[in-house]
């Protein structure tokens, strides 16, 4: 896992990232309006946003690193630590919580031998909580990568992970 993190760490941003961010900047009056977009671009290339990338992106947007960090840490879907190839978001909002979200989390973590936010040893998975995936009528709900899994019960967990 260590090597994996090492591999993902770059100093600054790649030419492609800079180009895409600059293209976004050209649409706005105020560079800081591109904050979220810039973070998403970095994440698209790297899977997460390292300190180095964040500092470089902040410079590009004429912001202080702290200002961009404020944006980055506000959003669940911007990862400021390395995450596995697939991120599993389980909903822990009211309905899912009532219908067993805790159990789901426990099963996911046990199965993958990770705590919340950690990357599994093979670098494949990270489990994170999220607030409401908009499918409360099918609680508990889990999102695996970009795929929504509804009415999750204990054996669906192993099913999900088995795939």
């Amino acid at each position: 896992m260590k090597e994996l993190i090492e591999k993902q760490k770059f100093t600054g941003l790649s030419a492609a990232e800079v180009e895409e961010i600059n293209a976004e900047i050209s649409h706005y009056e105020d560079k800081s309006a591109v904050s979220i977009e810039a973070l998403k671009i970095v994440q698209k290339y790297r899977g997460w946003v390292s300190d180095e990338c964040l500092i470089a992106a902040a410079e590009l947007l004429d912001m202080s690193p702290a200002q961009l960090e404020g944006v980055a840490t506000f959003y669940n879907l911007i990862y400021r630590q390395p995450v596995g190839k697939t991120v599993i978001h389980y909903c822990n909002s009211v309905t899912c919580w009532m219908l067993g979200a805790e159990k789901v989390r426990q099963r996911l973590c046990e199965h993958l031998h990770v705590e919340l936010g950690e990357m599994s040893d093979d670098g494949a998975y990270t489990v994170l909580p999220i607030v409401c995936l908009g499918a409360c009528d099918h609680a508990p709900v889990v999102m695996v990568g970009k795929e929504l899994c509804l009415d999750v019960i204990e054996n669906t967990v192993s099913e999900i992970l088995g795939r």
Partner: protein
Amino acid sequence: MATIEIDGKHYEAQDGQSLLAVCLSFGLNLPYFCWHPAMGSVGACRQCAVLQYQNPEDKRGRLVMACMTPVADAMRISIEAVPASQFRRENIELLMINHPHDCPVCEEGGECHLQDMTEMSGHTFRRYRGQKRTHANQYLGPFINHEMNRCIACYRCVRFYDDYAGGNDLQVFGMHNNVYFGRFEEGALENEFSGNLVEVCPTGVFTDRTFSAHYARKWDLQTAPSVCIHCGLGCNTAPGERYGQLRRIINRYNGEVNGYFLCDRGRFGYGFVNSPERIREPLLDGRSEITPQAAVNYLDNLCQTAKGVIGIGSPRASLEANFALRTLVGEENFFLGLNDIEHTLLSTIFNILRNCGIHTPSLREIEQADAVLIMGEDVTHTAPRLALSLRQSARNATFDLARSLKIAPWQDAAVRELKTQIKTPIFIASVCATRLDDIATDTFHGSPEDIARLGFAIAHRLDDQAPAPELMSDAENSLATAIAAELKQAKCPLIVSGTSCASIAVIQSAYNIAKALPSKDKQLTFTVPECNSLGLAIMGGGRLRQAFERINEGVADSVIVLENDLYRRAHSQTVDLFLQSAAHVVVMDSLRNKTAEQSELLLPTATFAESEGTLVNNEGRAQRYFPVYAVSEPVRGSWQWLTSAMEDSEWRHHDDLTAACAQAFPDLAAIAQVAPGAAYRFKGSKIPRQPERYSGRAAMFANINVREPAPPQDLETPFSFSMEGVTAQVPPALLPVIRAPGWNSNQAVNQFEEGVEGHLRGGDPGMRLIEASGNLAWFNDIPSAFKAEEGQWRIMPLPHIFGSEELSLHSAPIAERRPAPKILLNPLDAQALGVVNGDRLEISRSMETAIATLPVQIETTLPRGLLGVPAILPENQQINNPERVTLKKVAAEAENKPEIFL
């Protein structure tokens, strides 16, 4: 005006104001967190809930946030109704879920807004038994502690630091129940006003780190009204003492001057008072066997027998001390202690303020400006608190727009959302980049001559009677036209200039612009370097050079130097020669310095915290400071040493001296009314410096002597060194501490103001001495453009908030933040010399040997031919004049350490 009904009582209030602000100014106890009088409302904390009724029949009402509700006529509300008070009690219970239970070890305790509001809301029992979220704290530099667990997420810190003070390194991270207020990474907070977080944060997250080192509760501190002595603005302060040590400085509200905020130099620069460098006893020839009486006799004798005694005054000593010296040595033998440049600049400024007929604004008035031109100053470094006010003027265009959209100015979030291209026009002409550039519409960087020429050009465009400079570049011409156009349109334009680029032409051009402006509400203000610079200019006296001549030519043989390190003002060879030529040198000062070292008789003087006096700030406002605690003999106030040496003097008391000084100078006539004198009694007694809960008085010195000593007598001021008496309702100039029943933090000030953010009830302290009158002619001396000369550079001292002021630099936390010794150079100049950042250059006066060797920092905004030097750092005293020097690269092998050759 609107009539509103609160809990059955009727009140008159201004339409459209925030209901919370109005309730507070009626003295009603309505708790709040996220609202701040200077920063308005965002409705984030939900603590200020009240019940609002629809109409006279409505019995139920609905909950509204008072801070977000504009006052309207016939409004009916209740603070006390059960649904409102219950909501507030439960709201605070929720805010406190994660808050620790350890007030006794928290440094906010005893002056904590959270404690006060919790009490006020009636949340007296904690039901929550679960885990609390905890955070790691950050190291934020030498000024501020960080204890994030105490945070209640009111957002006031970032609203002050970012929105109000223009910082960007303190932010909020995370979301919902897990927000963190801190820096991206550990390190000193960069903004020059970070210290205000101590008072802005309603909890113990941000506390004064310098205070931690010798902490005492607010109720255990002895306090008296004081005035900051670290620049020329004269912010009002409340210093606190315990065990004979000055423990901290907090803000003392003055509606016209500093309002709610101080700068970090003023707040954290006090350490010099406790410094081991203090002079504690009289020394004759460096030996301590002289008694105070013998010292007085010596001084008296000297004045009787010497061939001629001259006195050198000081812009960091009070009017009274300077006046006493002037009287002791005689008017014709009194010199102001300013070098030629300072002297000329200050008298030029005084002449303009006195005779030009243009209003000099207070800081409050400055915040009203709708167009600003700064001429030659990096205000953040020369008059810090003024920079904070200018940041608020920068918002006036947005406020105008908000008003036109019917958004009240106190609706902070809404007003700040109005991100538009409309900005208050602010122009900055300076030597190189300044800390206010982020609010500038446009900037100009040039030598002082070029700044002045731009100024003259602007004036000429506003009024063609004003003289015009010749041979301006096209860029300069169009900039001048643009600036003139903006200033001409403004209703309340402000011109800011000052002494820091050491150029009379800059000051004169600033006057020409102000004179040329059509608006009748135009304002002109100048920064001055020291706390009594303007007072000294009003008093008048000879120049330092003339004092040197008196001694060197043998006209006089003795000199008394009052609180003035002459080595900061002239070349060391010159001062050496002067001090060596004098047969007798008497120095009076509080801290050891090079001048003091050369004295025959050295008299230990009290600092601002231990003495009384009157200072005149840059606005011409005379303000009185009072001793916070009694200093022990043989340290005395300068005025006391001086008056006791006048055998037949009638001045036994400070009041006598103030009165005599007021009488001697018509322009100072009002100083006697600045504050009531020593005879003043409030409800029959003197005003206590100690709060009524002051603890341990009987025992605090028991380790020295078990007998409780009698409290020292104060014969000079209306204050006593005791806890007996009352402080509520004393005149504002005599208000030692801000506290009201139920309000223990400094936010209690709302109980003392005429309306929130208004004047103090009874009038803001201080007397303005100079009101605009007369009309000066145009200044015609337009300098020619600066030309960089091959192989020559001109030194440009660049003041720095941490370092350029003498006394605060003796405070360790300030010294930690001072700039490293260095020189700034234009990139092309650096290229020509073959140096890069960090390389060292040897600086020489023409035809002389090297005077200093310093590392280079490349500064793109600095014009060619200028050499920027952080002003008057101790190492830099030799390179502090705008003189021409040559530079030579030092071979790389040479040891990489700055060297100064004295």
